[in-house]
């Protein structure tokens, strides 16, 4: 009874909203539809509709997958201070970090699915019925940790929201151990994703032990950048209270993470340029182009400049606490890391290819449309979950012991 009411009430919450809400949902649905058509074309014709080829077998899809694993992992940036240091103001926004993680992982699964050549065989990746190549394949490990992380965050978020719905206090005996478990798991999803690349000796650009720490550092800026912006939107559009202090604290953590990220990047650049081996050609391709091939030079420099500029904005307390400069910094970090962890990581790793050929990859329209569709689907999921969670925590939608009806405000 109570479950049914929770479930049906949640669906009702999704269906009812303001005009702005409907416009937003319709916009996302249109994008999803566009992506679905593009994907249908890709499935029927083959991945030849993308610009990936044998020389560059991975592209935009895997780049987005990598970036979003980072966004999902970053939920822990909020969890660590909230639960380990028991820092009050952040605690109330942890739930949104978790919902963001759930949406990001869902998008990761979608990106992997659209990338594979035989989506009809995706069940070969499932435990028991399929058969993962454990312990050897890092991709198999990634499937395992991402699934666990997804289930864990989904359980925590659902439990918290459900308890709020019934009007009871959640049990700390259940929540705290699960939340603490999510911290190492968040680190592991991004570490394993980094190992996916760094474990490939055929690609010297990736085959660096610094890759995993760099992944974590950059993720701990890009994920919170998104959260900081989303919290401001939530503050404006709902009656949800989020203290300025909480947002500034997150911004301060982002500054440390970005400094670490740039430091590790500098260490890598020193090693490559000072040793000046054959392997330098991949960095050369990324930053200056090789033999006239320079398709990603501009995006790569843009990403670097954005990250440095954002670090400056976030280090100075005055610009960190100014809403305009804070948001400019967030956008720059988000875009900077998006390029760096997307095309900026995947493409120079594969160009030139293992036999020295340069094939210049740049995404096709099909890839761009499918990618937009997946992001729209992810945002749609996030919007729905936030809508349910928000109306429950604000008391608009609560358990009615006798019969279902509009809640008293």
């Amino acid at each position: 009874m109570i479950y049914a009411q929770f479930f049906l009430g949640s669906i009702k919450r999704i269906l009812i909203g303001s005009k702005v809400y409907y416009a937003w949902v319709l916009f996302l649905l249109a994008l999803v539809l566009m992506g679905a058509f593009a994907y249908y074309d890709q499935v029927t014709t083959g991945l030849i509709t993308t610009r990936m080829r044998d020389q560059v077998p991975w592209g935009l899809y895997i780049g987005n997958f990598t970036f979003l694993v980072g966004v999902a992992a970053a939920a822990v940036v909020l969890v660590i201070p909230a639960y380990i240091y028991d820092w009050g103001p952040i605690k109330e926004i942890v739930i949104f970090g978790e919902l963001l993680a759930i949406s990001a992982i869902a998008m990761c699964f979608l990106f992997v699915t659209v990338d594979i050549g035989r989506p009809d065989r995706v069940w070969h990746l499932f435990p028991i019925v399929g058969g993962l190549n454990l312990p050897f394949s890092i991709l198999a490990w990634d499937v395992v940790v991402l699934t666990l992380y997804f289930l864990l965050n989904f359980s925590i978020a659902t439990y918290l929201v459900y308890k709020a719905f019934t009007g009871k206090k959640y049990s700390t005996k259940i929540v705290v151990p699960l939340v603490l478990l999510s911290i190492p798991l968040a680190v592991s999803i991004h570490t394993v994703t980094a190992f996916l690349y760094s474990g490939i000796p055929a690609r010297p650009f990736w085959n660096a032990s610094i890759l995993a720490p760099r992944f974590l550092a950059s993720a701990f800026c890009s994920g919170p950048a998104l959260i900081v912006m989303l919290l401001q939107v939530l503050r404006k559009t709902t009656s949800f209270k989020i203290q300025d202090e909480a947002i500034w604290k997150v911004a301060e953590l982002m500054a440390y993470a970005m400094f670490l990220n740039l430091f590790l990047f500098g260490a890598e650049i020193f090693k490559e340029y000072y040793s000046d081996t054959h392997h330098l050609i991949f960095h050369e391709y990324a930053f200056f182009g090789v033999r006239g091939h320079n398709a990603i030079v501009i995006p790569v420099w843009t990403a670097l400049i954005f990250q440095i500029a954002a670090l400056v904005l976030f280090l100075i307390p005055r610009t960190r606490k100014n809403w305009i400069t804070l948001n400019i910094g967030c956008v720059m970090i988000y875009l900077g890391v998006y390029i760096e962890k997307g095309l900026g990581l995947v493409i120079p790793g594969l160009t030139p290819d293992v036999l020295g050929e340069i094939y210049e990859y740049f995404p096709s329209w099909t890839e761009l449309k499918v990618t937009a569709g997946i992001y729209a689907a992810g945002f749609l999921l996030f919007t729905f979950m936030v809508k349910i969670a928000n109306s429950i925590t604000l008391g608009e939608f609560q358990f009615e012991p006798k019969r279902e009806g509009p809640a008293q405000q």
Partner: protein
Amino acid sequence: MTVKHPLFDDPSRCADARSCTAADCAERASCQAGQRLPKLQASRRGFLKATAAAAAALSLARCGKDVFQGRFSELSKAEVKEIISGLEREYRKKYPVNRKGKQLITVTAEPPQPGVVFGYGLDLTRCIGCRTCVHACVDENNQSRKPQIQWIKVLELEKRRGVDLMHSDPYYNPPKVPEPGKYYLPVACQQCSNPPCTRVCPVKATWKEKDGIVVVDYNWCIGCRYCVVACPYGARHFNWAEPTVPEEEIEPNMHYLGNRPRMKGVVEKCTFCIQRVRAPVDQRTGKPAAERDQNIPGKGRYPACVEACPVGARKFGNLLDPKSEIRYILENKRVLVLKEELNTRPKFYYFYAT
């Protein structure tokens, strides 16, 4: 293996589309499942195997697609036999005429022979970069003509630079080869003893056979292309679209793990012409079935590229046979392998004969 069922030994019964009913298929499935269960240890594994067997039987009976076929390496001999005869029927119908006229298409799943590990030698002093091997390989292995897939890539390099892959040119196209100052380096799968490609496969769809050949189960590959990324030699190729081979160009002697037609969205690679080098063995005598076809005494035929090379730059043989030509080369010539520092331990040896 206590249960014996008449259907099991008679693949023709279910093969006939008209007589094939749902009941037939169900019966066949349960019979296969029943046969396999007694010798399995864990019940879950048993269930899975039974399910896979049932699915394989169902697919072979043409009552469903091959979507639920199990992993090749886990199929029983009987299941393999059935899958193969199903494929033969399918291909014979699709390609009644082929490059050998009206020769019927045969598909084998010849296993590795004991005491054999294949090795390949390529004489860099002889290779003239004519690409005859590339096209012999395309023809023999039914590689897609459109979009074009070629398992062998010949690189043109400058003599003064040595083996410097980063300055190689795969698209060289002079009126006449060889060109002065240049040498040619054909690259295909190096059949590594420590292959990075099989390690990364998330679903165990590719593995190294006992005779050293690295193969792909085209029916299990999910097309994630992690192996393409991991291969240091660019030897793996993905079917970016539906592969096409004109009917009259189909090579009819096929191996399940080799040159049978592939499908869209899976990875393929050189198999040392597994359909040639693994000689069909006569079931009764245990000896090679067709003596006249053998280039390697008692061990099958040479790969197509070895046969096609006009200058004799390509050598092939059994590394475990001390009297083989490949062993002579390894013991007496200056030999190199590509990207030695990656510890892939190729069984494809480049050498200088003179």
